[in-house]
Each structure stands twice: as C-alpha cells, then as structure tokens.
C-alpha cells in the first residue's frame, strides 16, 4: 500500500476531490496547513519596503491506496492542482506497512 500526501492550493481542493471521487478514490483526510516552498513564500511591497510573507496557507490531502493505484492518484492530483505558477504544491508518496480498519473484527 502507498500513502500519498499532497500539499495543494486551498482553492484547488474541490477540483482534486471531485476528480478523485470520479475515479473511485473516496477516502481522504484533509487538513489546513501553513508552509513554504523553495521560493520561501511571497514577496510583497509595503510602503516601499519589501515584505516577505512566509508560511502560506495550504491544504494537505492524505490518501492511502493500493500500490497499483498510486500512480493514477498522483496523476489526478498533479493535473487538477496545477496552475503553472509558484506555490502549486508538492506530492509525497510513502510505503505503508499496515492498514487496519478500526471497525473490523
């Protein structure tokens, strides 16, 4: 099994979630996070001074799927969260040792 962590733009969540739904990937955990990438946030001009806005609000989507589905899920997220500009986010894929459903006997 694989775990996919995707850090995406908050406004892209609906599109990503709908597209995953369409392909039958229903389960996900979503959280509000703050962070920065290689660009170290966004630079703004404020009264002639440069201001660095660190730690931009993002959404983290966590999904666990069969290893065979991992590539498809990654491709969907990459497609739906894309704008082509800095700050589109990042996807991490991990191996999962075990997945236990709490309700199951």
């Amino acid at each position: 099994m694989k775990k996919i962590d995707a850090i995406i733009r908050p406004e892209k969540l609906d599109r990503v979630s709908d597209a995953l739904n369409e392909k039958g990937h229903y389960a996900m955990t979503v959280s509000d996070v703050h962070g920065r990438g290689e660009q170290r946030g966004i630079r703004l001009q404020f009264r002639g001074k440069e201001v660095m806005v660190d730690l931009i609000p993002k959404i983290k989507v966590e999904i666990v799927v069969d290893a065979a589905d991992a590539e498809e899920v990654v491709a969907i997220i990459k497609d739906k969260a894309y704008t082509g500009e800095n700050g589109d986010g990042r996807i991490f894929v991990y191996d999962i040792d075990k997945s236990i459903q709490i309700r199951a006997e």
Partner: protein
Amino acid sequence: METDIMINSAFILICTALVMLMALGVGFFYGGLVRKKNLISMLTLSFVSVALVSIQWVVCGYSLAFGPDIGGIIGNLDYCMLQGVEMSGDPVPDMLFMMFQLSFAAITLAIITSAVAERIKLSSFIIFGLLWTTFIYDPLAHWVWGGGWAQTLGVLDFAGGIVVHIGAGFAALALALVIGARLGFGEHNLEPHNIPLTLLGGALLWFGWFGFNAGSALAVNEVAINAFVVTNISAAAGALSWMFAAWVHGKPSSLSMISGAIAGLGAITPAAGFVGPVAAVCIGTISGILCYGALLFRLEHNWDESLDAWAIHGVGGVWGSLSLGLFAIPAIGGISGLIAGGYSQIVLQLIGVVAAIAFAFCGTFILAKAVDMVFGLRVTKDEEYVGLDISQHGETMS
C-alpha cells in the same frame, strides 16, 4: 431645555449609538462572509468607514447635506466645522440631529464595502470613501431630507430607503463593476468562513435597526412606536420568506434567514413612518423573495458584487420606497398610498427612486473609475492571493 426636547434627546442619543453599532456590525456581518485571510480587512473597512465619515461630516458633510439650500441640489458651507450648529432646535437640538445623521452616513459607506471585499487597496478605499460621501451621499441626503428638490416635490423617505439603501446598494454595484471580480470568482470556492460571525453581525444590525427606524421619528411619539413595531414585523417576515425560498431551492441556511431579515429591514426603512402592521408583513415577505431573486440574477450575470449590498439593500430599498406609495395609510403618517386611494405618492416615489438609482450608480461609476485611474483601486494579484489581512494590515487570524 424644555422637558419634551429633553425626553426626545434622551431617546435620540440612544438611537444614534444604536446606528453607530450597526455600522460596526456591518463589519462582523461581512467579515464572516469572506475567506479567513480577509476577515480583519473586512472588519477594518467598516471601522474606517465610521472614522472617515465622522470627520468628513464635521468638516463639510453635514453642511453639504443639511446646510441652506443651493438650487435644490446641495447645501452650502455655512455649517462647515459645525459652526452655527446649535444646542437649540425642535424636536431635538440641531447638534444631536447632526450626530444622528452622521451615523447614517457612516453606515452607508460601510455597506458599500461589500463591493470591494477581498481585493481593495486600503489607501484607495479611504480616498474613494471620502469622495463618495462628499459627492454622492451628501447631495442625495440633501435632495431627500435637507430641503432639496425631491423633498420639495414630495418624495418621502422615512429612515433612508432612498438615501442609505438605494444609495449604498447601487453604488456598490457600480463599484463592483469597476474593480472587477475576485480572483477565482466563478471558478473555485469562495465560501464564507464563519457563519456564526455573520449571524452576530446580523443580530447587531437587527437590534440597531430599531434605533435607525424608530429614531427617525426624531421624537418619542406614536410614529416612533409604529416604526419600531413595523420594523420588527418586516424583518421577521423577510427572514422567513427568504429562508423558505432558499428551502425550495435546497437548504434553509442560516445565511438565507439573516439575509432575508436584512432585506426586510431595508425595505421597511423608507416606509416605517407611514404604513401599518399588515403592510409590514407584505413588505417584508415580498422583500425576502425579491432580494433572493436579485441575488440569483446577480450570480447568473457573474457580477461579483461580493456580499450582496445591491441585491439586499439596493433592491430592498427600491421595493420599500415604492411600497410606501402603495401601502401608506393617513392614520399613521398622514399620507395615502394607492391602496388607501392616494394616486400621486407612488408616482413621486418612483421619481425619487429612479433619480437616486441613476445618480448613485452613474456618479459612483465615474468616481470609482477616476480613483482607479489615478491611484488603482485594486491590490496586486499576489496581495490578493495571500489575503488583505497580511498584505494591507500586516496582521493575521491564523
């Protein structure tokens, strides 16, 4: 001071404070409706509106609106810096009347912030607000209340349906068209981030509106009592009708309920001193449905008048101002509407409404274009993306 004037003054002092609370309540109402990254900005715009207009009103606004008439269009500058505004006056001292009217001007600008939510440059809003209050609000108030042409003609506006609600609503629409839609409007989710905060703001508005409408009688009398009663009836009817209309289309959201209440409040405002309880039920019920329809119409046309000042205040104000000519009964305000057999008032109301729409919309459009060309109304794309809380104020909720 005579006893009657003292009693009236005590009442209007309280009403003035209530209307001031409304102006700040608008900030909470709007603040909950934007995304979290713009909450502080939205609250600040209302506070800035109150502060800005408080000074403008004292310097020249009151004089332009209520000073001695020049050609039916505008007041002169005799009362500049409140010179000659006395502690005498009937039914309340002029100085208190000035303060009561100041609170109306302040809330009107606060309502307009709906149009620029999540994308206005604070500095440009300050410039726009100052110009708007001076060149649009003050003449409009003079026309209808300060001895201008509309008042001379017989156009009636009890507590601000034309001046405040049509003025703010149609100005907001014009301003929204000039500044343009928010990034991502119609593409991705721009849902409200805090509905309880919006309900709190709505509650402050409903509560404060008693001062707005009952206070407009300017005295402790039957007209004030009637205004208080019909205000509550119309708000309640509007809350229910919008909620039921939204229910037919999906869910009876709390936002639909509070939007309907404000639509009902906006609509009863011009008529509160002239109509009775049955009319208030009709005015409120219809306003809820009508304003909801206006909101749907706005969305169909992709107008990002973001927080619906036009749909709620503008359209509600138009309906309320016309309904005065329809439902007025002589026993309350001495005016007969269409149903009571008076045929002229509705024509007068129509003239007032059309003139106010044309003036507020066109005037604001020109003013907003001018400010946009000289200073730029809008923040940069990056600033809009990170939110106005950080980019304009250097502060954040999270």
